């Protein structure tokens, strides 16, 4: 098991004196927002997509319902990045397939301070 501060990994580099999203009218990217969340990342994924099933899936609701935009499409396949998962369960509810969904192990995942 390894502890990685994903905040540094996912967060956008800030330009000096100019934080993204500080000016009205400027949208903060989802990567920058995930950089605001404290995570302890497990070495093992707690949610697993079933490659063969996802490949055939025409609906692919996961691509837009995930609040962290962790599902992406690459060469027709669905990829999922479990680091940065906000643990809401929306993908589990929306997915018409049988998604292998779990919470991260105890003590892992997001640590909300303002939830």
């Amino acid at each position: 098991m390894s502890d990685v501060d994903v905040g540094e990994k996912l967060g956008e580099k800030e330009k000096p004196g100019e934080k993204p999203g500080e000016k009205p009218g400027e949208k903060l990217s989802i990567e920058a927002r995930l950089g605001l969340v404290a995570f302890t990342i497990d070495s093992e994924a707690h949610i697993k997509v079933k490659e063969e099933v996802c490949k055939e899936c025409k609906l692919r609701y996961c691509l837009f319902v995930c609040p962290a935009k962790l599902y992406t499409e690459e060469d027709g396949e669905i990829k999922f990045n479990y680091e940065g998962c906000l643990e809401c369960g929306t993908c589990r509810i929306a997915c018409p397939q049988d998604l292998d969904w779990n919470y991260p192990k105890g003590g892992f995942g997001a640590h909300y301070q303002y939830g």
Partner: protein
Amino acid sequence: MEEKFDAIVVGAGAAGLGAAYRLAKNGLNIVLLERGQRIGAKNVYGGRIYSHIFEKEIPEFRKEAPIERWVKKERLTLMNSDDAVTLELFSDFSPNDSFISILSKFNEWLGKKVEEAGGLVIPGIKVDDLIMEDGTVKGIVAGDEKLYADVVIDAEGINPILARKAGLRDDWKPNQVAVGVKEVIKISEDKINDIFQLNEGEGVANLFLGYPSSYGLGGGFLYTNRDTISLGVVVRVDSAIAKQIPIYDIVEDFRNHPFVARLLKEGSPIEYSAHLVPEEGFNGIPRNLAGNGILLAGDVAGFVLNRGITIRGVDLAFLSGLIAAETVKEAHEAGDFSRTSLKAYEEKLKNSIVLSELETFKRTSTLLGNLRFYETYPQILCEILKEAYTVGESSRKVYPILREKMKGRLSLFTLIRDVISAVRNL
């Protein structure tokens, strides 16, 4: 060594904390297990809690609880992409006040109250499974560990992993839950008081309809904390699917709406979070809330009341936990933890505000499933008022403007029917 507890409580949300608090006060040997690294680390909500149940249960509540602000202004805002129409109630709500709080901090405080009452609270433990013997729950499995108890109070939260294993409920369908996303925005206490015209300790609860949820079933919210703002959007999952709403973008679109951007221009986001919310009210509650050796409390049982203008969950969850604890105490005295004994919980809930309030507003969730309240009405209202308040070469009366805006979008009959339905069911 095989240790056996009187009760194991799964999940330190409001329900689990309520259960553990009352059980510990009653002198039972209990353990509260929480998967978060600390109590409160996984809890996310909008921002407001109704106080009276906490006042009744915890005498030192007003003095000790981490309350950000007491709600002084209730606002409802209808929005299109450019404009906003707001209705505000400014009032003294005491003694039945509600307060704005950060749930992570509030639950951390409740966790301390459980410990003070003599309860054992262990964070960092995820319960993976139930120990079932002959259809009776005997304990829990967490990793390689097994813990035994007379009864398990399942307050695992919105994702029913254990409750399904116990056969007490099915999984939620997309039309029964909403996804909520939230940003917390840092602004100084003085600036919040200036921007929202508040005295010290006073707060605003603002709900929004229309643009924030991309005109899908749901809405936006804004709560003033002491020196931060909680800003978020909630969308029912079936509606997000039907409209293909990019959920990861909606709260930023909301923050950058000209109306909101003016309120929050002094601040920047310091945290982003997401959580599911039960949406179906009374009809989403499972038939059995008790099984052999197990009770369901809080979100997993669907105890959230959405009245359209207010949303209540934390106080109902906490109360369901207290009632579960009372049931367990009686079962403990009788030495019977079968469903026959534990189903007294269901009766107690029916006689409490948990189920009576949810039942009163049973038909409200049908009303709230009417897409026109999110799509058509906020937009039409903004357009009509804009024209009514605009003075140019010539002006028109409101009724002809209304008829023009309704053309092709809404019949007079539908409008009247919706108004009657809203008046009856809100």
